[in-house]
């Protein structure tokens, strides 16, 4: 331990100016990504999960879909991209924030002059980076192995982009909101994974919407995942496949509406429910 006093004297002169929220958010984002990348097992499983499921489903159901001019693997590729986005946003934030709260990482941050918004900005950057990487991996696998046709027009890519942005934002906000639900970090994954799994089954990720009963689709219609899947089908499948949809159409307008509503509603939900301390800490 150093015992010389002269090395300790900090320059306290000058008017103290608090660092800006935006730049701290960028720094937190870099730190979040660094931590994510260093948990190698988490990286491998995060990216492998949807790819493995895509490979499984597309291999099991490999035939043509009647009267739609597409293969089943094309349907799964679109759905798996949506599920992948939800897993890096909803699932990963829901679990990681619950753990950070339980392990008092949040409390420590709250004890510093870091503005709370910088913490959330950092999470946004993490989710965006992992979401883009996840989607790129799936597009690559889908296009090379599972008949996924990448869009050739700028309009389709634009549609893809806004569904991606609105979808990932809505899911991330939902993830932040659900992180307040688990009582401890240990129970977080069970609490978060079950609703995510159910939504994947009823939103057209694992099971094509045409074979799902209407009442289940009516439930999934309340959540973003169904609309993300539908939107990505609209982007990646030919127009002939629209007959498979519940409404017989891609419904881009309604997709924008529901996803947009989740972005606003999710934000309100987060602002109302977010806690820096775990319930045990009172």
């Amino acid at each position, binding site marked *: *331990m*150093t015992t010389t006093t002269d090395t*300790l004297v900090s320059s306290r002169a000058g008017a103290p100016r608090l*660092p800006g929220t935006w730049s701290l958010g960028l720094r937190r984002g870099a730190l979040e990504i660094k931590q994510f990348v260093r948990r190698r097992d988490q990286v491998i499983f995060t990216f492998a999960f949807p790819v493995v499921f895509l490979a499984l489903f597309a291999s099991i159901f490999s035939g043509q879909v009647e009267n739609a001019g597409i293969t089943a693997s094309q349907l799964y590729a679109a759905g798996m991209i949506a599920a992948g986005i939800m897993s890096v946003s909803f699932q990963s934030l829901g679990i990681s924030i619950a753990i950070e709260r339980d392990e008092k990482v949040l409390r*420590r941050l709250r*004890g510093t002059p870091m503005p709370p918004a910088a913490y959330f900005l950092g999470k946004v950057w993490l989710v965006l980076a992992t979401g883009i990487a996840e989607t790129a991996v799936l597009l690559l696998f889908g296009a090379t192995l599972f008949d996924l046709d990448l869009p050739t027009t700028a309009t389709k890519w634009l549609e893809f982009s806004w569904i991606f942005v609105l979808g990932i934002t809505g899911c991330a906000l939902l993830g932040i909101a659900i992180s307040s639900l688990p009582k401890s970090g240990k129970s977080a994954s069970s609490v978060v994974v079950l609703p995510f799994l159910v939504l994947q089954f009823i939103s057209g990720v694992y099971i094509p919407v045409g074979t799902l009963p209407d009442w289940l689709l009516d439930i999934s219609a309340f959540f973003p995942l169904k609309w993300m899947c539908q939107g990505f089908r609209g982007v990646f499948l030919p127009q002939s496949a629209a007959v498979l949809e519940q409404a017989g159409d891609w419904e881009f307008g309604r997709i924008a509406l529901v996803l947009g509503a989740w972005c606003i509603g999710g934000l309100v939900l987060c602002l109302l429910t977010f806690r820096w301390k775990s319930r045990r800490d009172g």
Partner: protein
Amino acid sequence: MTQLAVDVRGLRKQYGEVTAVDGLDLGIRHGEVFGILGPNGAGKSTTVEILQGHRGRDGGEVSVLGADPASAGRAWRSRVGIVWQDESAPAELTVRETVHHFARYYPNPRDPEQVIALVGLEKKASARIKGLSGGQRRRLDVALGVIGGPELLLLDEPTTGFDPAARRQFWELIRLLAREGTTIVLTTHYLEEAEALADRLAVIAGGKVVAEGEPAALRQSLGTGATVEWTEVDGSPRTLRTETPTRTVAELMHRFDGEIPGLRIGRPTLEDVYLRLTGQLDPQGEEAR
């Protein structure tokens, strides 16, 4: 308005039916090292958490560096350093990355490399936090507590779980910070720690301050009398607290007619004073069971 670094009047905090803090008063001056001493459950941690702004209160007035912690903002937080009782730092990052990153939160931070050296983690600067020992993590906690160059440092049981050598090193660190002019408030249940570090201390029991002052003065004012120990004829040890030890010894001499077996006369230590104040010692000088 207030000249004190920490000014607490009539602080109250309830947890359901339990009253954790029950009309507590504290006045801590700028630049002093103030010890809050008390047994587990006396209300120390609750009090410190209220001073940190991390817990609400049910009554009383609290001013820390001139502001109410319950409503103070970012500028206030940048002037107060906190070392928590139980800590967690990002396991995947290195010591250096973490300290440098936290420095960014503050308007006028200390030099991160100097702080790392200050807490004696130079050799571990490039190590991931998950690989640090308990004592090393604690030193990292202190580094993160002082990185912002705080005017006031609040430490809650900072040396719990330290081995004696690490504790002495830690004390040196606290003295160093104190010499620099940092006001330091620390809770502890180690008496020697309070005696070694604190300019003044408050003994808390049952959510109230039961004694306050300089350690030596506390011992003198409250530690009157003496303890006389001897062994009875049947071989059983006896202890008596008395204001008149000489008379006790005279009586014993009379009874034993000569040498008194196992005779010892002790003046009370700070520990005796503390145990008596916190109700862990009955008036006969026997430890309460």
